[in-house]
């Protein structure tokens, strides 16, 4: 029996990757996290001299922080909602129907991501200026909507294509009209994967910075935009650190939610389909 035991080898490659990832991702997070709960931290001390929630109180007491949180949440909600209303039926059309220009249109959603985003944004800003959309809520909604199109079309298309057509036909057969079939059969079948797309689009919009800044400034200030201005203009590091930690909250909640909603493999199905 003894010689059938496989010698347990140390997976050096795996350890190397894990260490590299830890240094690159976890270490900065730790530093920022520590700064957020630090009252005094002076060179050359390795750990802060004084921990505390002083800067949390100061940050959360600011009106601009609260208004930017509300702004970010309402923007992300509005963009995700509009994106779902526009993109899901479009994705269904891409998945199930054949119409002229289908392939070119389908790949055109990639175009927005294929070029340097900032150049595109500046060009759009020029157009928005003439339309009086600069500095307005709906201007930012519009620009962020463009950013969600790729996820909200491509992932649901794959999800819809993965739904067995016979299931839809069986529903037609028992008396459901096309819209009822979509609502009662196709959407629930594609549900988990679409939930993943919606989640991605919400979180992506919440963190979107360039568009919100270029189109929204100075009237519209989202949390990331505010954080940038804090980091640039404030000599106190803790303000930025506290906002960073605040910004983790939605993605953390999203991740928890994702673990429950997304059955294993549906992400892969969405991207791979």
């Amino acid at each position, binding site marked *: 029996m003894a010689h059938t035991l496989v010698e347990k080898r140390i997976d050096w490659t795996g350890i190397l990757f894990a260490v590299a990832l830890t240094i690159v991702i976890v270490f900065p997070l730790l530093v920022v996290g520590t700064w957020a709960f630090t009252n005094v931290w002076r060179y050359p001390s390795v750990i802060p001299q004084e921990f505390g929630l002083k800067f949390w109180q100061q940050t959360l007491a600011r009106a601009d922080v609260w208004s930017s949180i509300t702004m970010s949440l309402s923007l992300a909600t509005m963009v995700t909602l509009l994106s779902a209303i526009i993109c899901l039926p479009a994705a269904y059309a891409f998945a199930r129907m054949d119409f002229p220009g289908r392939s070119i249109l389908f790949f055109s959603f990639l175009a927005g991501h294929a070029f340097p985003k900032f150049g595109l944004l500046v060009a759009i800003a020029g157009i928005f200026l003439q339309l009086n959309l600069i500095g307005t809520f709906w201007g930012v909604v519009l620009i962020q909507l463009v950013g969600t199109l790729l996820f909200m079309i491509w992932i649901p298309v794959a999800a819809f294509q993965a739904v*067995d057509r*016979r*299931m839809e*036909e*069986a*529903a*037609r*057969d*028992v*008396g*459901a*009209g096309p819209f*009822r079939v979509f609502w*009662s*059969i196709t959407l*629930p*079948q594609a*549900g988990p994967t679409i939930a993943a797309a919606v989640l991605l689009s919400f979180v992506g919009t919440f963190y979107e910075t360039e568009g919100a800044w270029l189109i929204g400034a100075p009237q519209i200030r989202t949390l990331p935009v505010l954080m940038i201005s804090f980091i640039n203009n404030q000599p106190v590091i803790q303000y930025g650190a506290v906002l960073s930690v605040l910004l983790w909250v939605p993605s953390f909640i999203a991740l928890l939610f994702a673990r429950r909603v997304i059955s294993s493999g549906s992400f892969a199905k969405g991207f791979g389909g």
Partner: protein
Amino acid sequence: MSVLEIRDVTKAFGATKAVDSFSLTVGDGELVCLLGPSGSGKSTLLRMIGGFETPTSGHVAIDGEDVTRVTPEKRPTGMVFQSHALWTHMNVFKNLAFGLKLRRLPEAEIKRRVEAVLELVGLGGFGHRATTQLSGGQQQRVALARSLVLEPKILLLDEPFASLDQHLRERLREEVRDIQQRLKITTLFVTHGQDEALALADRIVVMRDGRTEQAARPDVVYREPATPFVAGFIGTMNLVDGAVANGTFTHSGFTVPLPVGDGAATLAVRPEALEIVSANGGGMAKIHRVTDYGTHAIVDIELPDGTRLKSMTSEARDWSHGQPIDLKPRAFAAYRDNAAIHRSN
């Protein structure tokens, strides 16, 4: 009275005609099997009756009403798919209740009808089960129940048992036949299995290249196949191409008296009708192999040119490899230009 009337229906996909000028009338309560190899257009035909395909030309009428361009949800047909196509996000009860809910029936009525149909297909008490917890046979029963619960005028079954194993297939086939008889529901059954068609059907429609080869009772299709194709497709059949001269059919030493005019002909003999007798001298053919199945034996025969024939006999021990024999067909048919020209029974 005819429940279903298909008149001169053609369905073309590009240049190929999946169904070609097809006509069929089905009477009330009749069970018709559409039988044919894959690509013969039988599934396309069924889908046109269900409303999932629109004919390129021709008409489909149900109960005298033209439904050629009516959408599936407005047709009084119920379809059972090969892949059962159950909605996996609903339990068994909800799968069955979905169509009834669309018809706005009261809750109590829905519950009563669903439970009655589940009982009918032998799945009483399975309502709360998830469809994914069921075996293949149970899933197919649920799919059948989902159609039956709506009491369709015509039940359409598209190779419903193709994905099940042989044993289960035979059992479900009998159950479907029982249910169909009890409910007296007009049924169209698509299959490529001839035993399924022979066991189930009141009438078999043998299809080939989108056309009807023969439409008749199972026993007629088996005993008097209208064309060499049907003869070869239903059951096992020895088909021998040869020539007739002076009232005798000849193919490589194999001769049979055939009282038809001179010319080419195809001879069709069932293995059970092909008698083998010990040869006087050289013989017409030789025994190639004997396979003993206990109740009967199958003897493979080789003609001088290498053509193989099969004979079914009750006694295996009389024959051995290489033995010269003569052939005496007890019953046979002869075909010329795709039509029967002679039958001897």
